[in-house]
């Protein structure tokens, strides 16, 4: 059995390893942390995130459940009622849907229902997003559903260090956290030593991944998860066109860090929200709307959105046309000049 995820000597680490290490450390520190899900035990999860946990902590701490997502989350609710801190793995984004009622009707509301008496310190890990050539139902970006559900925190890392830090923070949180793991960054690497984990990133704080330098026309790219590297690359490429882009990695969709986001947009006067989830009804609408409400007089152009098309996730062979890539971000940046009425003239 490989125990790569726990191999502390290895460096650079992948995001998958950092996640596994976060689970390991949380379980080691706190005996109330329990991991459960499909194939999380002997197999170590289909993405091997939980690899080695059952071996180290036993089947009672890291448990292969029957194949039933509502049952997994529903029993986790009961475990949380009894003082445990369950960390639930949903095997893929779309396979979290069977647990939707438990999530919305119970997990998100139990604290509120009981006037604070019954908190739900549950972490729900959901591998999400596309770009890995998965067949249908394996590439959904389902964050819009969680965003619109008060009582849940929704976080998603884009870096190896944040993967560790945010997962530790999620498990430590006394509130339920939907922890969205960008599948296609699982194998992304960074010089991160699991032995000196960076300070645990607090939930609710965005980070400016790239600061405007003052050389060129400024604008802010607001993004998260799998689109962060895309935006970093776009920002680099945009320099050639005379743009000076900031990139804000939200990390936490709920709670939303208005402060960091608005500070950047007020500096730059222009903003684009970039995400993989479908555009219509996706997180970008919320983000654009709240940025506009708060920064209207600083905006030189409307906040634009670059998102997945309003279609079911496409077949792998054409998924690249759906996913917002560098070119599509750059096209949007070009539209930020707002010299023409082109966008406005498009419909209606």
């Amino acid at each position: 059995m490989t125990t790569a995820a726990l191999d502390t000597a290895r460096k650079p680490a992948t995001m998958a390893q950092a996640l596994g290490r976060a689970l390991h450390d949380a379980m080691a520190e706190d005996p109330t942390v329990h991991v459960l899900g499909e194939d999380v035990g002997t197999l170590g999860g289909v993405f091997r995130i939980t690899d080695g946990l059952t071996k180290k902590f036993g089947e009672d701490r890291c448990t292969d459940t029957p194949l039933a997502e509502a049952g997994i989350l529903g029993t986790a609710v009961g475990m949380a009622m009894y003082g445990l801190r369950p960390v639930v793995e949903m095997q893929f984004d779309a396979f979290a849907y069977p647990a939707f009622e438990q999530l919305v009707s119970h997990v998100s509301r139990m604290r509120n229902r009981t006037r604070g008496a019954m908190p739900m310190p549950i972490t729900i890990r959901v591998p999400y997003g596309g770009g890995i050539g998965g067949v249908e139902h394996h590439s959904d970006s389902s964050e819009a559903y969680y965003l619109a559900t008060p009582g849940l925190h929704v976080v998603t890392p884009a870096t190896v260090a944040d993967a560790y830090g945010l997962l530790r923070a999620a498990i430590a949180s006394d509130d339920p956290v939907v922890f969205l793991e960008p599948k296609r960054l699982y194998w992304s690497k960074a010089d991160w030593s699991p032995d000196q984990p960076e300070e645990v990133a607090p939930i609710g704080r965005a980070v400016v991944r790239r600061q405007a330098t003052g050389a060129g026309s400024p604008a802010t790219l607001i993004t998260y998860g799998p689109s962060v590297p895309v935006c970093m690359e776009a920002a680099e490429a945009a320099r050639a066109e005379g743009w000076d882009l900031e990139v804000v990695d939200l990390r936490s969709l709920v709670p939303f860090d208005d402060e960091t986001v608005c500070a950047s947009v007020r500096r730059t006067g222009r903003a684009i929200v970039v995400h993989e989830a479908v555009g219509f009804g996706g997180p970008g609408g919320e983000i654009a709307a709240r940025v506009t409400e708060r920064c209207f007089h600083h905006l030189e152009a409307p906040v634009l959105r670059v998102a997945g098309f309003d279609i079911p996730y496409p077949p792998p062979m054409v998924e690249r046309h759906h996913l917002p890539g560098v070119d599509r971000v750059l096209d949007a940046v070009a539209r930020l000049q707002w010299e023409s009425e082109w966008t406005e003239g498009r419909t209606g």
Partner: protein
Amino acid sequence: MTVLEQSGAYRPTPPPAWRPRVDAAPLLPDEEPFRLLGTPAAADFDSALLARLYQELVRGRRYNAQATALTRQGRLAVYPSSTGQEACQVAAALALQERDWLFPSYRDTLAAVARGVDPVQALTLLRGDWHTGYDPYEHRVAPLSTPLATQLPHAVGLAHAARLKGDDVVALALVGDGGTSEGDFHEALNFAAVWQAPVVFLVQNNGFAISVPLAKQTAAPSLAYKAVGYGMPGRLVDGNDVAAVHQVLDEAVRRAREGGGPTLVEAITYRMDAHTNADDATRYRGESELDAWRAHDPINLVEAELKGRDLLDEQGIAEARDAAEAMAARLRERMNDDPVLDPMELFEHVYAEKTSQLREQAEQLRAELDAESQEGER
């Protein structure tokens, strides 16, 4: 000797034995619901307990009547009465130890009350007041669950967690006949059986899911037969026979406590009132059915037994009635209070700590309330 062994011709390897064999026979429920009252076996049932159950039944019946009356007086928004089902409600509460947990559905206020929850607090939800009126940890009663069957996996998870912790705790979860059709019922029972969790499932089969009769809900010989499909025993019991229900639950709870795993109990009973005060039951069922069930009233059954044992006379009946009346009077009185809710509390329990967004929104509401009260003063 099997057919295969008899045959000389071919001897293929049988499929490898690849899982432990469980014997199905002991899991199967009886064809007839188990009964005690009115049978010779009733004689073995503890007298003190029977008397206690009787008091609770009378009180429970009165509680149901009072709560329904409160809806007519506008003191309660809605009440799903358990009139006719008191034997299940009371037996469920009394079959548990203090350290155990009860997982009620929206119809089971009475079970919560019989377990010790304050009768007014138990009605908080149905009053239009806060969603849960009691602290679930005080009497170990989970919030009344409105989404049907969703509380069953909670019970399993809690029981499982308690067992992992080495605590001697059993969870008893209530669900209706309609609720057994939900996927959550299935998943909960399966998890319970696979984990051998100390949990007991009590299906109150009261014949209807709102207007839908059992025949449109299931084609099973009885709901208790579902148990075998999960590898747990199924028990069928006369849900109007409080002694029988108590005994069956007591056995199941004991089995669970001793590490024997979960049990599914189906109690056959009848919802004498409409689904709720807002429902019109005449649209879907007739008086004659009701009459037949009136002749099988849980209170009468136990009354007859107690009288037969010379443990109850007219005076005892009057005393029980008076105690119930006193409870009802107190309830009426306390429900006359108009609850005062602080709208600002809306933001208090969404998260452990208010987000900046909720702080903003709380400020907004605060300002609105201030403006309102200033206008009120003017």
